[in-house]
């Protein structure tokens, strides 16, 4: 238990077991990003998976839209302490996109238009845990929330769900992405409250 600050009472204690430690629930959908939202034209949009040997797998917007889509409804948790329950998305499972990719890599660097990157273990993108999402609540994903398409990895803090995603680079060894190099946790499990390096 921490040091008691005299006079502090706080709110009624919530026993909501859907809320990870240190989070509070919001109804709106706050925006967090490090710079202006890139504007990506659909005719130029590509999603590229590059393996550790340099082999590339590429999808155009039309390619993506012809792949089978899924409609996950998930809770999301931002490291800035808001959580939002029951968000609904449409997108293509990474299991589908990575099905024909031959790799020995254990790690992935997700790369975005605008230069943002974030690192993840490959296994966290597989087995129904991650999508390339292009609709939010039944509408096209707005640019400020990462449209036309973003990575969606809801079991990790939401900075791992890279907005404006343009590709995945498969890596044999882990590396640090944008926020991770600035001191945020390399993995980012909200249930273990892995906010900063060393947590």
């Amino acid at each position, binding site marked *: *238990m921490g040091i008691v600050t005299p*006079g502090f009472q706080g709110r009624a204690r919530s026993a909501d077991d859907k809320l990870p430690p240190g989070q509070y629930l919001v109804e709106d959908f*706050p925006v967090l990003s490090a710079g202006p939202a890139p504007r990506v034209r659909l005719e130029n949009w590509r999603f590229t998976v590059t393996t550790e040997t340099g082999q590339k797998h590429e999808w155009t917007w039309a390619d993506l839209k012809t792949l089978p889509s899924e409609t996950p409804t998930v809770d999301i948790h931002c490291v800035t*302490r808001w959580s939002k329950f029951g968000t609904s998305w449409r997108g293509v499972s990474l299991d589908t996109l990575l099905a024909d990719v031959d790799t020995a890599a254990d790690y992935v660097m997700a790369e975005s238009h605008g230069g943002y990157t974030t690192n993840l273990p490959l296994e966290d993108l597989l087995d129904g845990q991650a999508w390339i999402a292009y609709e939010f609540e039944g509408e096209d994903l707005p640019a400020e929330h990462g449209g036309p398409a973003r990575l969606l990895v809801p079991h990790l803090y939401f900075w791992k769900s890279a907005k404006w995603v343009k590709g995945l680079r498969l890596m044999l060894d882990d590396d640090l992405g944008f926020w991770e190099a600035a001191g945020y946790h390399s993995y980012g499990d909200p249930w273990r409250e892995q906010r900063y390096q060393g947590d």
Partner: protein
Amino acid sequence: MVQGKLAWRVGRLAEVRDETPTARTLVLDVPGWPGHLAGQHVDVRLTAEDGYSTTRTYSIAAPADGERVEITVQRVPGGEVSPFLTEVFAPGDPVELRGPVGGWFVWRPASRDPVLLVAGGAGIVPLMAMVRARRQAGSRTPFKLLYSVRTPEDVYYAGELRRPEAGLDVTFVYSRKGPADWPGEPHRIGVADVNNAGWPAEFAPQCFVCGPTGFVEAVANILVALGHAPRRVKTERFGPSGS
């Protein structure tokens, strides 16, 4: 860059300064504080008698100064933490802190690029740390600050910002009610404000934008439309939902 675990430290409130009727600056003494850069944050953890605790992140309002950490807290009606920090928390009381946090939205005094700061409301706090860091370092790097605020009564650090300072241009935009001598109608910040108060894109300034989400989106898009390279526009949201 690998950092050790960020440790919680016990700080004590040293003094308070009321900035507006609803915003208070808290000056904390934090033994062991490692220092910070202008623009970084600190996590503040409050614990109640029964062990319940909750944490909020605040931008630091002043550059590193030994073991002193200053934050400015806007009182949010019905909030869990801000009414306590602005009305109850008293000099001498302890609180836990850890930081500094965040290494992107920062200004380093060694930088020579001109700087544009654009603040919306409470978003002035980390930008004020940059203004003060420039002064503390004796930097001659030219700064422009464009500060959008509802009314003159809502201006944080008013006396300090209205005092002339070489190399720092301050422009206010009032969104609800301006002072009697202010030429213009109250309005939300727009292209003309950013164009007139900022630097030409050819000067390649570093731009820092902080405020509520809609404000930040609008200003960032204006800067890009005016020709500023997106990577030179750093943004940070500031709002009651912690975004």
